[in-house]
C-alpha cells in the first residue's frame, strides 16, 4: 500500500514528510523562502508575513503557520506575492536606520539581503529612524533599537530557550519596542550575556560587542608581546566565510594565520581545559565524600555562572570553584610571563559573548589588570583575518607554541555539550584502556539534545549525572532538584548544544551546529593523548609554576565576590 502523501508546490508534486509546516516543506524542495521571524527552535510567531504563499483559490496563507495538507496546491512566487513582499520590505526599510555600510551586521543582515533579492530601489515613505539609538551598557552585546524590525526572535530566544527574561516587547503598535523592564540598560537587567539574542537577530539591532580594535592596537605596538588562546569550538566553526566546512578542524590553519598576523605566542584553550578536568575531578571527589544534597555544577560557562548569580544565588555554593579553562590558562600564562620586560597582552578567541564579561570580572584581575586583556569572538577573528587580506585556505597548518603547546583530546571536546562531563569521567574511570574510553562515549553524554542523563558506577556508588544546555533546560533541572531529584554532577552550558553554538560563532542552522560537535569528537580521536591527566604538560605545571599556587591561580569564589 502506498501511504505517501503529496502536495503541489509551484507545479511540482512534493512528498509530505515530517514537516511541521509549509515553510519547511518549501525549503526542503530548495526554494529560498524569505522570512524574518521563523526559527525551527522557536515557537511560530508569524509576524513578518514574508513567507505568505498563494493557495489554489488565490487566498494567502503564511507558510510558517500552515501545516502541509495532502492534495493542496500552492504557489510561492506569484506577481501578487512579489508585490506584497516588496511592500513589506519597503515598510520595514522606511522605519529602519539604513546606514548599511557602517553597520556591524553589514553583509550578514537579512533585511539587507532581502532588500537586495527583491530589488528594492526606493522607499516612498519618510524615514524617522536615521540615527542609531544605542544601549551600550553590556560588555557582551550592543543594542540599537532603530535597527529593530520587531520580529521578536530575540524575545523568544531569551524567554523560550534561555528562560532569562531580560527582554520582552514593550508598548504596542507603532510605539512597540523590545526592551528590558522600564527600558533599563541591558547590563542592569537579568541578562547573562549569552548573546543568543544577537545570534538570531536578523538585522544589526543586537550585535556582539566588537573588541578587535584593542587587539589590533596591541598587535601594532612593538613593545607589546601578544599571546592568544583559541577555544576548542572555534576551530570547527569558521565556516564558509573562510572557505572551510563546518565541523572541519581548522586549528592548524588558524595558528598559522594568527602567527602571520603578528601574534607572538599562540596557545590552545584545550590546555586550560585539561587543568579544569584535573581540578574539577578533584573537587568532585572531595564533595562526593560529604554526600551533599545538591550536585556539583560545572563552572566553565560564564553565562551559566551569571545566571546563577542573577537568578539562583542560592545555588552558588554548589557551583564548582574552578575557574573556566580560559581563566585558568590565562592566569598561568600571565604568571609565566610576569617577569618579562615587555608589556604582555593576552587575547582569547572564544565562541562566546559572555566571555567578554568574564574577562572583565574583578576576580580575574591582578593589580587591576585582567588576565585576559581582550576577548574576541570567532566572528571578530574572522573579520580580522579578512581585514588582513589573508587568503585563509592558502595557509599550511602549524602547531601551537611552547611551553604550553600540549593538550589532550579531553580538553578539545569541552567545546560541545557533554564534553566536560566526558573528560571528567575519563579522569575518574578506573579502566584506562582504549575500550574504557569508548565505553564512556556511549554512556549517553554525547549529542546535541538539551537534556542528557546518565548513571555511572563509581566504586560502590552509582553516580547520577545530568548534562543540560540551554538555560531553560537548566532551570527545569534546578526545579526538579529542588523538588527532591538527586544528581551528583551537573554540566551546564548556556548555549543549546554547548560552545559550538555560541553566540560568537557564525550563525548556522542546527544541522551544521551538530556537525561542528562531531568535528570536535573527530579532533579528539586524532589526538595522541585523550586523558587530561596523561598530558605531560600537566605534570610539569603542577610540579613547577603551579606549585603552591593552585588555589590562587585556578580557583575562584563566586560566592564571596558578593556581586549579586
Amino acid at each position: 500500500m502506498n501511504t505517501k502523501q503529496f502536495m503541489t508546490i509551484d507545479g511540482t508534486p512534493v512528498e509530505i514528510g515530517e514537516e511541521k509546516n509549509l515553510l519547511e516543506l518549501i525549503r526542503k524542495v530548495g526554494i529560498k523562502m524569505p522570512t524574518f521571524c521563523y526559527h525551527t527552535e522557536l515557537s511560530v510567531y508569524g509576524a513578518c508575513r514574508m513567507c505568505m504563499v498563494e493557495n489554489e483559490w488565490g487566498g494567502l496563507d503564511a507558510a510558517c503557520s500552515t501545516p502541509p495538507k495532502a492534495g493542496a496546491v500552492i504557489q510561492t512566487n506569484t506577481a501578487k506575492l512579489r508585490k506584497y513582499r516588496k511592500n513589506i520590505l519597503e515598510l520595514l526599510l522606511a522605519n529602519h536606520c539604513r546606514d548599511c555600510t557602517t553597520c556591524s551586521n553589514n553583509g550578514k543582515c537579512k533585511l539587507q539581503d532581502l532588500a537586495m533579492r527583491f530589488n528594492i530601489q526606493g522607499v516612498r515613505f519618510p524615514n524617522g529612524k536615521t540615527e542609531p539609538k544605542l544601549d551600550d551598557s553590556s560588555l557582551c552585546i550592543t543594542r540599537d533599537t532603530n535597527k529593530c524590525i520587531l520580529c521578536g526572535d530575540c524575545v523568544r530566544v531569551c524567554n523560550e530557550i534561555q528562560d532569562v527574561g531580560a527582554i520582552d516587547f514593550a508598548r504596542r503598535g507603532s510605539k512597540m519596542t523590545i526592551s528590558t523592564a522600564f527600558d533599563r540598560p541591558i547590563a542592569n537587567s537579568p541578562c547573562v550575556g549569552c548573546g543568543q539574542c544577537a545570534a538570531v537577530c536578523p538585522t544589526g539591532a543586537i550585535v556582539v560587542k566588537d573588541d578587535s580594535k584593542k587587539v589590533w592596537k596591541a598587535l601594532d605596538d612593538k613593545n607589546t608581546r601578544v599571546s592568544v588562546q583559541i577555544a576548542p569550538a572555534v576551530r570547527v566553526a569558521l565556516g564558509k566565510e573562510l572557505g572551510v566546512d563546518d565541523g572541519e578542524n581548522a586549528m592548524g590553519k588558524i595558528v598559522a594565520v594568527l602567527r602571520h598576523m603578528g601574534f607572538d605566542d599562540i596557545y590552545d584553550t584545550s590546555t586550560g581545559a585539561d587543568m579544569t578536568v584535573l581540578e574539577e575531578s578533584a573537587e568532585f571527589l572531595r564533595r562526593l565524600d560529604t554526600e551533599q544534597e545538591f550536585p556539583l555544577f560545572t563552572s566553565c560557562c560564564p553565562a551559566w555562572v551569571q545566571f546563577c548569580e542573577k537568578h539562583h544565588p542560592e545555588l552558588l555554593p554548589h557551583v564548582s570553584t574552578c575557574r573556566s579553562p580560559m581563566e585558568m590558562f590565562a592566569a598561568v600564562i600571565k604568571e609565566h610571563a610576569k617577569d618579562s620586560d615587555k608589556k604582555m597582552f593576552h587575547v582569547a578567541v572564544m565562541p562566546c559573548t559572555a566571555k567578554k564579561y568574564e574577562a572583565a570580572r574583578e576576580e580575574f584581575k591582578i593589580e587591576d589588570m585582567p588576565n585576559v586583556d581582550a576577548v574576541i569572538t570567532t566572528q571578530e577573528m574572522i573579520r580580522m583575518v579578512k581585514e588582513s587580506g589573508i587568503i585563509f585556505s592558502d595557509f599550511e597548518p602549524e602547531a601551537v607554541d611552547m611551553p604550553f603547546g600540549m593538550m589532550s583530546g579531553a580538553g578539545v571536546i569541552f567545546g560541545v555539550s557533554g564534553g566536560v562531563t566526558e573528560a571528567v569521567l575519563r579522569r575518574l574511570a578506573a579502566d584506562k584502556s582504549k575500550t574504557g574510553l569508548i565505553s564512556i562515549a556511549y554512556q549517553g553524554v554525547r549529542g546535541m539534545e538539551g537534556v542528557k542523563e546518565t548513571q555511572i558506577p563509581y566504586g560502590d556508588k552509582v553516580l547520577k549525572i545530568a548534562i543540560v544546555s540551554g538555560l531553560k533546560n537548566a532551570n527545569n533541572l534546578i526545579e526538579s532538584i529542588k523538588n527532591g531529584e538527586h544528581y551528583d554532577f551537573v554540566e551546564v552550558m548556556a548555549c543549546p548544544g554547548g560552545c559550538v553554538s555560541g553566540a560568537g560563532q557564525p550563525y548556522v542552522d542546527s544541522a551544521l551546529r551538530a556537525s561542528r560537535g562531531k568535528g570536535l569528537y573527530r579532533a579528539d580521536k586524532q589526538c595522541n593523548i585523550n586523558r587530561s591527566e596523561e598530558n605531560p604538560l600537566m605534570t610539569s605545571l603542577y610540579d613547577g609554576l603551579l606549585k603552591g599556587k593552585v588555589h590562587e591561580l585556578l580557583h575562584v569564589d563566586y560566592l564571596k565576590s558578593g556581586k549579586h
Partner: protein
Amino acid sequence: MPLTTREELRELRGKYEQSLTAEKKKILVCAGTGCISSGSLEIYDRLIALMKEQNIDCAVELEEEPHEQTVGMKKSGCHGFCEMGPLLRVEPQGWLYTKVKLEDCEDIIEKTIAKGEHIERLAYQKGGTVSKKQDEIPFYQKQTRLVLEHCGHIDATSIKEYFGIGGYQAFEKALFDMSADDIIAEISDSNLRGRGGGGFPAGRKWKQVKSQQTEEKYIVCNGDEGDPGAFMDRSIMEGDPHRLLEGMMIAALACGSKEGYIYVRAEYPMAVSRLKTAIAQAMEYGLLGDNILGSNFSFHLHINRGAGAFVCGEGSALTASIEGKRGMPRVKPPRTVEQGLFDKPTVLNNVETFANVPLIITNGQKWYKSIGPENSPGTKAFALTGNIENTGLIEVPMGTTLREIIFDIGGGMRDGGEFKAVQIGGPSGGCLTQKHLDLPLDFDSLKKAGAMIGSGGLVVMDDKTCMVEVARFFMSFTQNESCGKCVPCREGTKRMLEILERIVEGNGQDGDIELLLELADTISATALCGLGKTAAFPVVSTIENFRDEYEAHIYAKRCPSGTCQKLKSIVIIADQCKGCSKCSRACPVSAISGKIKEPFVIDQEKCIKCGACISTCPFHAIQEG
C-alpha cells in the same frame, strides 16, 4: 437556598410570575449608563423618599407573596433612547416619561401614582404629536425588540424578576429535555450567525467544540465591545445580564464545558457590576456551580475585565488577555475551537449571540427563522449615532433597509443637514451612501456592498462631514490600537495615517490616493489577524465613494465640507474693506497688511486661521472661504 430539582425551579418561577403579574403599579426608572449620567438614580431615590413621606407602600424587591397594592420601584436596563433620558416607564399603562427632572417627582407621585393621570409635558412629543406609550413613539414603532425585550422592562439587578418573566426556562428545557446534539441541531437549524462581526454560524462552532475529545473546554463571551460608536452589548450586559448567562449555560451544556469566562471592556464598569451580581444570584439559586438542579451538569463563570486594548476583541488576543498576557493575536491554525483559551477547545461568541440562544431554545428554530431573511435570520441591534435626530440603541429584523433605520426610526437628519453617508461596522467597516439606502442590512448584502455589519455601530454623517477626515479618524484609531505584531498592520497603518494626515493638512501629493490603495491592498491581504485585514476598509470605502473629496484636498487644497481647519483660508473682501487697519492690529502673527483707506490683504503663508480678524472687522469684510 440553592434549587436542587427542576420542580423547585418551576415552582419558584411560578411564584414570581404570579407576583410580577399581581404587581399592578410600577415605575421603572432607567438605570442604563446614559440615564444614570442624566441623573436617573437621584430620581429613583427621590420617588422612593416621596412615597415613604406620603405613606404609599412601595417595594424595591419582588417578593414571593403577591401584593397588589404596592407600587413596584425598579431600576431597569437601557431603553435605548438615551438622548431623551432620564426615562421612566409607568406600568400598567405602559407610559414612557422622558427627560424627567427631580422637580417632576412630586407630580409623578401626586398625579400618576395616586390618581393614574398622565403628565403630558413628560411625554415624548414631536411635531405636535404626543406619544404617551413607548410603542407609539416612532423611534420604537419600527423596531422588533427580542434580544433587548427585557431592557427597560424589568429590574436588571433582580434574578427574581427574571424568573418572573420566565427566566431560565430555556436552560431548564435544554438541561432536562434535550441532548447536547439536540441543542446544537436547534441552534444550527436556526442559522444563528455570530453577531460579533464575522457572521460565522454559531451552531457550527459549537459542533466543532463538542467534537473535540478533551476533558476541558471553555465557553467564552466576548464583551469587549471596542468599536467606537457601538454599545449594544453593553446594554444587554447591563439591562438583561441573566439572559447572557442563560445563553452561555446552554452553550456549555451543548459543548460539554464546565467553565466559562466573560471578558468585559474596562470602560463598562456597570456591566461588570451587574454581571457580578447576576452570577452571584445564579450561584445562590444553584443555577451555576456543581450539579446544577440535581443534574450532573456543572458550570462555573468568571469575569475578566479588559485593560484597554481594542485588539482584544479579536478571538486569540482576547484569550491571551484572559491568560494574563499581552493581547496579541496569534497565527491560525490551530483555530480557537481546537486550541483556544489555555490551549483548550473554546466556544467564543459575543454577547448578542449568546443572548439570542435562550430565545431560540424556548421558541424553536422555526420561529427564529421566520424573522428576517433566510440566510441571516433574527434581529440585529444597532447603535444609531451621529448627525441624526434620534440617536440610541435599536433592534430591527435583519434585512431592514438603511432608509427605514435612518428616516423612520432615526427621524432623519439633525439640524437640517443632508444625508451623506453611514459608517457601519466601526474601524473595520465601510461607509454606505445615498445609493445604498435601500440595501437590506444583513451579513451577505453588506459584504457585497464592501461594508460589514461588524458589531453594529451605525454612525450617520451629514453633508458637513469631511469623508477624508473620517477616514483619517478611523485610521488614527486603528493605528493607535494596532498590537504591533505583524509588519503590514504596524507599519502599513502608520504610513496610511501619515498620508491621510498630510492630505487633510493640505500637503497631499499626486499619487497619494494610489499609494493609499496599494498599502490598503497589502495590509488586507497579508495582515495576521482580522482586525489588521480590515484596518484599511474605511479608507478604501471612502475613496471608492468619495474620491472627489480626496482629489479636492490633494489638488485644489480645498475641503468641500469645510471641516479641515488647515485648508480653510480667511480672505478680505476688497469691495467691503474700508482700510481701517483694525484687523491688522488684531492679527497675532502680523499676517495682514495694507495702506490706510485702501483694501487690506492677508498673507496666507503667515495666517494661522485664528479668526481674530473676522470678529474685529466692523464692516464684515472678512470671511472664511
